[in-house]
């Protein structure tokens, strides 16, 4: 059971690959699909490994991805929109 979940806003992505490279549990990979601007957004290849650490969210320069803990996430829940 995954501890976290990652959410991707495909249309904001510019395909820099920071999230793919620096995900500590290697959850992501760049997909071969395009978004409407012609970039390759990341997609989830190992959803069960996600720890919800939100490091992808910290690295993403385009605010296009974030991770959150599923149960009792210390950090995310406190500041839910």
């Amino acid at each position: 059971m995954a501890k976290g979940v990652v959410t991707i806003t495909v249309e904001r992505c510019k395909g820099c690959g920071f999230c793919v490279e620096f995900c500590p549990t290697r959850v992501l990979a760049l997909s071969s699909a395009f978004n409407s601007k012609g970039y390759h957004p990341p997609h989830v290849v190992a959803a069960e490994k996600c720890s919800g650490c939100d490091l992808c969210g910290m690295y993403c320069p385009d605010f296009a991805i974030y991770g959150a803990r599923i149960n009792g996430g210390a950090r995310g829940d406190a500041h839910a929109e």
Partner: protein
Amino acid sequence: MATTIDVPVPGNLVEPFLRSERIPHIWCPGCGIGTTVNCFARALLNTKKDLRKVAVVSGIGCTGRVAGYVKLDSFHTTHGRAIPFATGLKLSRPDIDVVVYSGDGDLFAIGGNHLIHAARRNINLKVICVNNLIYAMTGGQTGPATPEDAITATAPFGAYEPAFNMPQLVEAAGASYVARWTTYHVKQLERSMTEMLSHDGFSFIEVLSPCPTLYQRRNKMGDGLDAMKFYKEKSKVRHGAPTSEIGLTRDGEIVVGKFVDRQRPDYVELMRRQLREHLGERFINDGVPTCC
């Protein structure tokens, strides 16, 4: 669309800080400025500050666009004049936290004089300098932070002028908090920004950021991701390192860490002290005129 598991999750932490209607932003793919904005947003969350009492002031340049993207009171000033504007803001409203978010060209070249005098006065500004080593918005000309031998639009055979060592300059000018990180060190940068936001006095953080379109392309250093790997490989954390020894070179080691953390009397404090001494009874409201 791409949510992997269908459970309610809290939104992106940075989202409440953004003017969403302006996103996607103009920064290039692989540029690190957005990453520093993530760290800044999280630092603001950590300090639990009242966001109505935080103002962001930017100059001109790629990093200058930050003021237009953050959903805080913000002002996009003319080139190099972020610090004078912020100084005025801080003097008239000492209760708000003024953050100057700008680039290396804006702060150190066009606004260089303002920067050193703000540091000398130790006025309580938080300066975040995103250093991409070049004048990026205007097409990649040699700037005051361009390392020697780097190829730029105005130095096709390599820059020959020595570059500023930013932490050394601001420390010598009198800054009371000086740190340097790269966009690779997101957690450390977040911690450092949190510390800076609760520090009294002139605080300065230099953040090294990739510029894939202009700096790295001309220097054959790959894209944004390659720059991040370069930072990972070359950076070395040395807290408290003497700032005279940490100049940047094109391919050399990048010393990161917190270099200076000291207390000096703040400009507003000194001004109030003198006014209190000389005006005596006539000194009202700590020197801040009441308005509204």
